[in-house]
């Protein structure tokens, strides 16, 4: 068993991670329940990781920290499991299942290992991925904004999606932009509505502006917010007076 393990380690040290993974697999099946088997489990995960097979690596790290919960390497394995998913997480325009998984695992890692020196790193990754998710939401909202030029109900969809970005990812850089753009989305939607629905919808824009001023008094898009706030107030007053004259 020791010989097999040393052979596997030799592959690993020489950078032949594919062969190493295979060799560690054998060591694990034969040496289940031994200290060597435990060691091999960790290096199996490492081999997959270094071979860029992150999905396999993640599941082997997970197996390690579940089986050998008391081991010193368990926190590392937890971190690496989350980190593997982080590396799997694709650009924001694609399915983000792995991103959600990674965030969840990093959060678990942080809460279980508060003292770990890697907590800071984990938090940084979480922030980065949340930024990505926020961007995904934000770009969906922008898409609805563009489609609004063709069919006005898409402006309302845009407002909803800007709102979702703010509610779910308030700490990201997209929150401020979303809040400002939401004002604009409601204004456009109101302007494209029938007269008797306009007041209500301009009011939505005004509410959105008030939230903006509260949350981001010195936001980068303040002037945009002001511009559409003025347009909303004007539009509302006009709608009200027009309705009164009918």
């Amino acid at each position, binding site marked *: 068993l020791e010989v097999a393990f040393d052979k596997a380690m030799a592959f690993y040290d020489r950078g032949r991670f594919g062969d190493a993974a295979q060799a560690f697999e054998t060591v694990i099946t034969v040496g*289940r329940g031994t200290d060597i088997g435990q060691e091999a489990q960790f290096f199996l995960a490492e081999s997959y990781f270094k071979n860029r097979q992150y999905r396999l690596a993640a599941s082997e790290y997970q197996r390690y920290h579940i089986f050998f919960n008391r081991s010193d390497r368990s926190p590392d394995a937890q971190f690496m499991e989350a980190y593997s998913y982080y590396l799997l997480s694709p650009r*924001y325009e694609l*399915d983000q*299942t792995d991103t959600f998984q990674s965030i969840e695992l990093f959060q678990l890692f942080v809460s279980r290992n508060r003292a770990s020196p890697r907590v800071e790193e984990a938090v940084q990754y979480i922030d980065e991925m949340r930024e990505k998710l926020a961007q995904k939401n934000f770009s969906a909202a922008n898409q609805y904004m563009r489609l609004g030029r063709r069919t006005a109900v898409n402006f309302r969809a845009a407002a*909803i999606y800007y709102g979702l970005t703010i509610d779910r990812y308030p700490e990201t850089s997209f929150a401020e932009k979303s809040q400002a753009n939401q004002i604009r989305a409601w204004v456009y939607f109101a302007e494209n509505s029938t007269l008797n629905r306009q007041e209500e919808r301009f009011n939505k824009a005004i509410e959105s502006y008030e939230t903006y001023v509260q949350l981001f008094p010195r936001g980068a898009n303040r002037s945009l917010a002001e511009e559409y706030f003025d347009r909303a107030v004007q539009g509302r007053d006009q709608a009200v007076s027009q309705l009164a004259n009918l």
Partner: protein
Amino acid sequence: AQDPTLRITNPLDTPPRSLTITQIDVTGAETRSESMILATAGLSVGEQITIPGPAIGDAIQRLFRTGLFSDVQIYQISRTGSQVHLEIEVREQPRLDRFEITGPRRSQRRDLRDLIPMIPGFAVTESTKAQSVNAIMRYYRERGFRNTEVVIVERDRDEVRNRVTLEFQVDPGRRIQIHEITFEGNESFSDRKLRGELREIKRTNLWRTLTRQTFDQASFEEAQENLINFYQQNGFRDIRIVEDSVFVFERSRGREGIGVFMRLEEGPQYRVRNIAFDGNTIYTEEELIASLGFERGDVFDQERFESNMYGNRRNNDITALYHDIGHLFLDLDIDIRDAPGDSLDIFIGMVENDIATINRVEFFGNTKTHDHVVRRNLRNIPGGNYSRSAIQRTVRELAQLGYFVPENIMPDLDVDFENRKVDVIYALDETAGSDNFELSGGFGGRQFGVILSARVNFNNFSARNILNGESWRPLPSGDGQRLSLGVQLTGRGYRSYNFSFQEPWLFGLPNSLGFGANYSYFRFSNLSGQNERYEQFSTFMTLGRRLTFPDDFFTQVTTLRFQLFDSAFPRGLIEPGRSKSLSLRLGLNRNSLDNPISPNSGSTFDIGVELAAPLAGLDQYYLADISFTQHVPLFGRLVASTGFEYGYLGWFNDNNRSQYQRFYLGGTLLQQQQTFYQNNIELRGFPGGRNGSISPYLNGEPIGGSIYSKYIAEIRYPAVSSEQVTLVPYLFFEAGNAYADFDEFDPFRVKRAVGIGTRVFLPILGLIDLSYGYRLDGIPGTNVNAGQWEFLFNIGSPF
């Protein structure tokens, strides 16, 4: 079990005490390390445990769960004060060295090897042995062997390593098939009818010798369900299978067969007496009853009732009526009561509830296709009312993109009842390949030898990621753009290259932009030994707009095209030399096909004008064309298509007339490719291209028409339509003609052909069309005569 230390004591008599472990001895371990056993047990020296308490039990359980030990015991060696000395005694399981199967054929042994849940190095326990035997028995039972015997023999016991080799001695026994299915208690239907309705199980008989009618429990249960459904569809609500039995009997001369017997209790056949609704404010009772589709006196068909209530194919069920206008929270309370004379009264109480609005529309599983491509196809818009038909249309349209596996597109709802909101979530599953690769070879006729052509179509391309190295796997993809590259070569002097690109949604709006270029070259020695050479280069740009008026099936397409011809030999009216033209085409088309490969219904309509203005140095012409095809479902899966096509070529004045746009009819794209200097119109039953096109003739040479007509009639039968292959055989009648000018034009003086053919669609290869046509008319002055058959083959041309 005969352990001398075993004493039965009432645990309540020994009060739990907290003790410190001073020492743990491990005995019986041979290959396992002591530390591993201690770690697994979770006990350690110095630890405080409660005895009696859960710690010892847990330890034993944990050790057992490893599957490594056949016996685990924990003893208390001594106890002094608050200290305890424990002993863990284990007996290790023998572990598997290897296993063998003897008895069955090699192919079955191979199957069994995969099924047997034994792994070398793992412990051999009674339970893994039993599982193995079960797996073998199950394997044979599914194949109709009901007398299988399995004996496990342990061999080559290696005491030192505690290893063992197992031999599975398998005797599959004889296969037995179903020979008899009988019923009792069936008064309304014959045994024969009921056997047919079982569907899942059948008797073996003379004409079923190819398939084996073996018995398995799952299909037997399904068959019983089918039978019950069949009765319920005929109004027998109370149908019960009172008794069923499956038995083996001796048929003749020692041969066995399986018999299946069912005793039924039919109960009365119910009819509908009254239908009443309560709580409906949006639809009237008459509308709802019409939607339910039952009238007084109708036999009560349980299945039809449920599908018309909750969801039917035509999507006009009662739930759909409400769900399509946002009433997702419709509550139905159905009460079916017996009435005298085997009748039923149906009361449907409903609470319509508020309209649900959509909050989020999300999707996941798009590992290749970008969000915006998916999102632009979603028919549910956040903030709008919930609609079931919008979801269905979305699923259909997502499936048509070809990027996702159609069967795996699953919509799901996340309902927030309190706020009357709902999230719609689509699960997607990216297909392995939305791209296709066409490679074809064919014989181009006596003069041209073998034709080779290769084309790659990337249907989900992403141009903006070309510079992003990470996205090249194997090509940048995900933006739903189409890129197509093609090369065609023949043995003798013909080659053609082309490239095209299309972005279907420019700047996020449903406007398409396309551009492309192609180059063709052809050189050969003609019958008189002269060298002929033709070259063509053309490049185009198109802009398409989806219109919403008159309806949303219309698109308007503008095409700007530059063409350059160079020919070194006079042919027809074409003079040797260079010819350039710049043309602008305005087209309007409407496409309402329900399926692009094998349409069931819908129509296509195109009308266009192409103008090549008489500018300095450019050749001039104008062209107008119109075409229409309509598809109508007949009975069954049969579809009939009819259509017509007309084209007209004219010139603004006498100077610089382009003669390259004249019409020639016949063949398919593959036959026509070497005559790229002509305006070829496809026509089945005629060879086309250089083998004889329909055209006016001048001095024995085809000169091409300035007007053409074409008519199509086709009956199709979509025989196979699965994800892997679509196969559509058809019968066709086609006719068409090309006329020199308006004086000659007679829309009904045409060349006709009838025949059979088939269209095959393979996702990796694209569309293949094979036709075998019989000519009713010949082309005077050529070898193309009436009464001959013509086989035509084409690959890659869309419908």
